[in-house]
């Protein structure tokens, strides 16, 4: 059989030279067969490695701007720096790992996959999450998991004000202090299944904590139905 063109095993893009588009165009069209794609000098550029649908490993060697790894499917993306707003927003599978801290709305509205933030996450981490698993090595800011519908948020540090406001069926596990709960969120007893869940997610994220140190936060489900007697006070 005649030899066929093979994709390079490792492809490197210097974003300071060519910007983000050549990287994303390669990831969208030509990444099949490539094991690893490296983005050098990201320097806070927006939309790095968005919309990837290929089982490729992507290394972002520096700080990323808005929406890095957004809408990811399959890819394993590591940001060797901090991430801007909306990292891994809308992800449906694969992993995004942030070695530094993440700005607001990390993992927003994402359906699946795993987002690991080794540092802190800012406000609204996991807002409207729909099935993604998020593990934060540090603390999360105010209003995290706001209106979160499905998936698990594991916080190894502390949680800010209004945690889990208007939660649906997502579940939050917090190791540190919780400044305040949002409307309809409360603490529930940990079950054996919860300990197993936390153990598994910590192992996948690579964090060594005792699952017994975590508390479970879930919805009281009191907002699920209209209550005329509540007098609009929740």
């Amino acid at each position: 059989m005649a030899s066929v063109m093979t994709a390079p095993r490792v492809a490197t893009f210097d974003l300071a030279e060519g910007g983000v588009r050549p990287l994303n165009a390669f990831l969208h069209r030509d990444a099949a067969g490539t094991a690893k794609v490296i983005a050098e000098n990201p320097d806070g550029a927006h939309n790095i490695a968005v919309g990837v649908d290929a089982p490729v490993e992507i290394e972002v060697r520096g700080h990323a701007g808005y929406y890095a790894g957004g809408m990811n499917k399959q890819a394993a993306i590591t940001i060797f720096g901090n991430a801007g707003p909306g990292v891994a927003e809308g992800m449906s599978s694969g992993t995004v790992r942030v070695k530094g801290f993440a700005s607001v709305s990390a993992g927003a509205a994402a359906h699946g996959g795993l987002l690991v933030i080794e540092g802190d996450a800012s406000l609204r981490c996991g807002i409207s999450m729909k099935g993604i698993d998020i593990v934060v090595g540090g603390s999360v800011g105010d209003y995290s998991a706001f209106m979160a519908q499905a998936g698990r948020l594991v916080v190894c540090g502390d949680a800010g004000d209004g945690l889990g406001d208007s939660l649906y069926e997502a579940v939050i596990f917090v190791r540190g202090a919780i400044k305040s709960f949002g409307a309809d969120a409360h603490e529930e007893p940990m079950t054996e299944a919860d300990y197993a869940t936390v153990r598994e997610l910590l192992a996948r994220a690579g964090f060594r904590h005792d699952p017994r140190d975590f508390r479970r936060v879930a919805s009281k489900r009191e907002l699920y139905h209209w209550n005329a007697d509540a007098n609009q006070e929740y």
Partner: protein
Amino acid sequence: MCGIVGLLVKKPALREQLGELMLPMLIGMTERGPDSAGLAVFTAPVPEAHRKLSLYAGGGDFDWIAFEDAARHALGPDSTLAVQANHAVLETSSAPDKARAWVRKRYPQLHVLSAGRSIDLYKDVGAPAEVAARYDFGKLAGTHLVGHTRMATESAVTPDRAHPFTAGEDFCLVHNGSLSNPYSIRRQLEPLGIAFDTDNDTEAACRFLEWRMREGDTLEQALQKGFDELDGFFTFLMGTKDELALVRDAFACKPAIVAETDDYVAISSEFRSLARLPDVKHATLFEPKPEEMYVWRV
């Protein structure tokens, strides 16, 4: 959307390079604010009895030579003028209120952009790179500066509605966001005799905070009252004669990031505008928290 930038150099040797270090920061925020740009730079103060007024002549030709002659006659022979395109900085030993009133009366076409012993201010419509070239921002020297790139959302694109806004002396403010109660703030201030130059929401915040400080509040006390009174989305960056101050609203709706090294404190809306700073790879980076006050002193 808008972009904010701030830079404070810690080492006196770097003061000559302030503008040069800042330039890529401002231009790096072009996508956040392509319609106007402005900058306030704080220099070593002029003598105690002197004041500087930053003046803007608008479009068309303005006879700055005749203006300087007239200023020497009216405000004193030691008055000097440094012209930069259609901006100029007038330094005079005349009382600031008198100088301001004279300019307003004799030259109604001039805008007084700032007054004080340290502040020089330039702002205009156009892309940040164009505005920076027009006024030679790269050559500016000083201890600290506050810059802005504007994408107008709630008042017209004109030079006087570009940021920074000033009030009183040696105080300026830039804003990313939008306020929802600027008119109630104005209705609170106007009966006190505080006049507004524009219909811009940011000007209300600027005049509110300066009014509080004139009433005796420290910057921190004024900012606390700002949290109580100003409603809306904001990242505010402020400059005083010897400070930079940053606050964000309770929801941290608008971005901000700080990079600090032994040489400088740099503030921007986004990291991409800090990426060209020397040694930024080893800087301490953090995102300011909502409703916290960050103040850096020269």
